């Protein structure tokens, strides 16, 4: 109360400025000190976090669920993962939040970030493993082997990989035998409102259609909304609908209510609409892919599958 007067305000401003300046200096001095030693043991990691849907599925498939201490918001399958602490969206990780789980390794795709947070995690001694999640078999085998190696589960990793590639090889063989024209397919994400997004080039959806012997009518890159009219013009023979909330007939109903024009496509007229689980389509190829490919082949070539089944009996 000593310096009440017209300069009081000015003084306060100066004090505020000084506080700011002191904060800056403290920050600089401290930043120089704060670089800590980082080393991760070579032994199998017992606490890991997965920031990617398919990565989590592979970890579970090789029996490493007990080693998982946290997952991101795209890790939805199997549903037991949803009981684990969530570290949020893979591109918006929080350094401190991840550190509370005391992970040794953080697995994720190249999309994981932001980069400054990854740098902070590295400084805190967390090993950041960026795995390829492209939709091709080479990326899958590389990622799964790497996970197995780091978790001390190489044998299990080889086993799940072998099951995967055997199943895919068998599907390829089956496709060689099928007869009939290649179906023209459209894969749509139905959100229940607005135009559904369709899966174009360089998506897991596109890869699934190709591996199941179909022709993807959507030729754009990634996911884009197509208008009802252009979907009608493409006139798909098969529509695959990925719906977060509905399965089977309910998914079809939701899709038709948001884009009624689709009623006039061959696919809807002939009842060739297949609902698939949308969690299959994010974050690369997971262990459930071969099973889905088998179902799609059955749906794409119904007559042939019946014949094959009859012959084998």
């Amino acid at each position, binding site marked *: 109360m000593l310096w009440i007067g017209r300069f009081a305000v000015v003084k306060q401003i100066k*004090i505020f400025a000084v506080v700011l300046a002191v*904060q800056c200096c403290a920050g600089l001095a401290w930043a120089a000190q704060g670089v800590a030693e980082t080393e991760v043991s070579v032994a199998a990691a017992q606490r890991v976090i997965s920031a990617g849907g398919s990565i989590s599925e592979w970890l579970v498939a090789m029996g490493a669920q007990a080693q998982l201490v946290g997952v991101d918001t795209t890790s939805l399958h199997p549903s037991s993962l949803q009981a684990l602490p969530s570290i949020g969206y893979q591109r918006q990780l929080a350094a*401190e939040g991840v550190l509370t789980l005391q992970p040794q390794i953080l697995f994720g795709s190249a999309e994981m970030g932001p980069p400054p947070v990854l740098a902070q995690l590295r400084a*805190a001694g967390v090993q950041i493993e960026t795995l390829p999640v492209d939709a091709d078999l080479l990326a899958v085998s590389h990622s799964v082997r790497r996970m197995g190696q780091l978790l001390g589960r190489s044998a299990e990793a080889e086993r799940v990989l072998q099951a995967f590639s055997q199943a895919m090889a068998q599907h390829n063989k089956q496709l060689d035998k099928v007869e009939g024209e290649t179906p023209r397919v459209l894969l749509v994400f139905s959100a229940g409102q607005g135009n559904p997004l369709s899966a174009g080039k360089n998506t897991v959806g596109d890869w699934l259609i190709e591996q199941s012997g179909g022709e993807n009518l959507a030729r754009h890159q990634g996911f884009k909304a197509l208008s009802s009219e252009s979907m009608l013009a493409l006139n798909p023979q098969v529509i695959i609908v990925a719906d977060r909330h509905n399965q089977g007939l309910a998914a079809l109903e939701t899709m038709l209510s948001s884009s009624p024009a689709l009623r006039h496509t061959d696919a809807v007229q002939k009842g060739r609409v297949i609902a698939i689980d949308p969690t299959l389509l994010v974050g690369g190829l997971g262990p459930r892919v071969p099973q889905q490919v088998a179902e799609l082949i059955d749906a794409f070539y119904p007559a042939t599958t019946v014949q094959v089944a009859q012959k084998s009996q």
Partner: protein
Amino acid sequence: MLNTSYRLFVLLGTVLAVAIVLSLALGPVSISLQNLVMVLLRAVGFDVASTPALEQAQLIVSQIRLPRALLGLAVGAVLALSGVAMQGLFRNPLADPGLIGVSSGAALGAAVAIVGGAMLGGISEAWSPYILSICAFAGGLGVTALVYRLGRRDGQTHVATMLLAGIALAALAGAAIGLFTYLADDATLRTLTFWNLGSLNGASYARLWPLLLITFAVALWLPRRAKALNALLLGESEARHLGFAVEKLKRELVFCTALGVGAAVAAAGMIGFIGLVVPHVLRLAVGPDHRVLLPASALAGASLLLFADLAARLLLAPAELPIGIVTALIGAPFFLYLLLKSRF
């Protein structure tokens, strides 16, 4: 008058100090009070025996929490100061820094960096945050400069024209952002959405310095124009007749705001509401004298942002809320409460 403002500053200063201490002390990782004190002792030069828990605490406090607290301090202060400057310039308590196009320009710059970068095959991970910041800053300054130019006629700046030009250019920038949104793929789209909600996450010293310097400059400069801003409240010609260089003042206000908000948005994304609500609330509390209003707004803006960030990082731990959501959640109801209270 000044006696009350003295008490106000003591109060606001205490609140800010508490906010800073809590920002360093609280987070998803719990650090014991003992270790926190050790870390602070070490920071001021004491020799403290090292333990693994202490090293961990030091890393978290010095590399994660301190840069984050500094970022929050600077962003909150500079947004609130810019809000006062704009409300003074437009003589309207509803003005916010977005009016002169700096926010929409920065958002456009960010959209160009995020979507354009992804379309060019991706900027290298190490550089993308810097390029994003630079593009957002440049976009904010560029659009503001254009708005200012459009508002000038015959050597005079017409505030009303500038306001309308700001609205038009914001709409234009909105359309361009929409186009980029359409071109973006799914992942890029989410980056853009999150950027628009703002975050203090991932603060690092390298990206902090430009903002701290600019905040420092704005916090020193604007209070020097407090008397001129007071005179401007009477009207432009009245201020001119009182002997203030009104044209120069307008130029300075626009420049300070563009610089400050541009840097804040570039460092932390779009954080709404601070620039509008903080000056408004303080004006209701302490009156329109800019000599009090400017520094008080800076202190209160910094405190509000630090508290909002505490909520953002603690509520959903180990995940995190975008801070723009929290500032709006805290700010909007409080604002409404004050409006209703002052009416009855």
